[in-house]
């Protein structure tokens, strides 16, 4: 039986793969402040003027996460991509190469299964799995619940692997320091134009699987041009998480964020 976070009425499940047994869960620890919302009655008593961002609640929870990360000197990075772009492989490799130098912890987001958390756990890294059920993205509340189970060490780097999806995760602030989009050369090079919201929200694009370039129709320069058409400030590193190409640039980027 899994370590299940029983709070909330939804179907989100938080699991520590090291401790798959029932445990108590409460809302002790870091505190979530509510967002500051202006509400006042309009001239007509029947009309309430709200002028409230639809995602205000998530944004307030994300701010609480951000404050907590700052207090704990934790660098949180939100990794997003379509399914199969190589997020988990990049994490495995990153942990293998950097864990002696930097304390790392991982939040894994998937609709179902503990498969990715098991892969991360096999590297010896601290990890918690969040299963979103029908949900297509992580939100700030799920991450807060995951953090209570994960208890990342002060001063560590927290790598949050979002649900594989190039649409919804871009809209939901988790309180991270930066969003990173991972794209692989086995995808269409025009993806940045098809999913502009995601590539605009990201600070860094990791172009993965460059070892496969000889076998696929993919023009990396054209892809990067498209990506910068959507987001002129986007930084880009080209890597192969399996073969190791370009990973030093990714690690340098991570070190620079601290």
């Amino acid at each position, binding site marked *: 039986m899994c370590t299940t976070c029983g709070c909330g009425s939804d179907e989100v499940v938080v699991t520590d793969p090291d401790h798959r047994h029932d445990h108590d869960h409460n809302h002790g620890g870091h505190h979530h402040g509510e967002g500051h919302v202006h509400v006042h009655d309009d001239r007509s008593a*029947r*009309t309430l003027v*709200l002028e409230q*961002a639809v*995602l205000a609640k998530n944004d307030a929870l994300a701010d609480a996460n951000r404050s907590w990360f700052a207090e704990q000197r934790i660098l949180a990075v939100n990794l997003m991509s379509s399914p199969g772009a190589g997020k988990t492989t990049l994490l495995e490799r990153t942990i293998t190469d950097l864990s002696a130098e930097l304390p790392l912890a991982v939040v894994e987001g998937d609709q179902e299964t503990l498969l990715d958390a098991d892969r991360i756990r096999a590297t010896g890294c601290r990890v918690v799995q969040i299963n979103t059920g029908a949900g297509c993205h992580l939100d700030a509340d799920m991450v807060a619940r995951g953090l209570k189970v994960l208890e990342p060490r002060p001063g560590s780097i927290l790598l949050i692997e979002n649900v594989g999806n190039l*649409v919804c995760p871009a809209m939901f602030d988790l309180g991270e320091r930066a969003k990173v989009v991972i794209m692989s050369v086995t995808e269409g090079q025009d993806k940045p134009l098809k999913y502009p919201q995601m590539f605009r929200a990201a600070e860094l694009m990791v172009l993965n699987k460059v070892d496969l370039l000889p076998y696929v129709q993919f023009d990396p320069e054209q892809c990067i041009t498209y990506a910068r058409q959507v987001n002129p400030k986007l930084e880009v590193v080209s890597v192969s998480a399996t073969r190791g190409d370009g990973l030093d640039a990714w690690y340098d980027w991570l070190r620079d964020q601290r």
Partner: protein
Amino acid sequence: MHEMAITESVIAAVSEKVGDRRVQRVSLAVGRLSGVVAESVYFYFDLATEGTPLEGSKLEIIDIPGRARCRSCGAEVELEDMIALCTCGSADLEILSGEELTIKEVELEA
């Protein structure tokens, strides 16, 4: 598909504000660059309001066009979508409007 989550966020935020009063109308501003498809929000709204103070209410979506200022030539341009370029060819645009996703107001039953 995130429109379902967006619609539920609207309903939750409004329900929190109105308590047990019934809602007649909700107006929502959706920018063309917000990444939210208004038609999908309309579609989910009737389903997702069932059993809430918003059940049976009318949803109004105010369409906000995208506008940006070009950081290269200083011109103000209309943006149909996020991959548009300035007429000077630059992609370095400062978005002025169109990213809105805001609950403007709600009208309560008398």
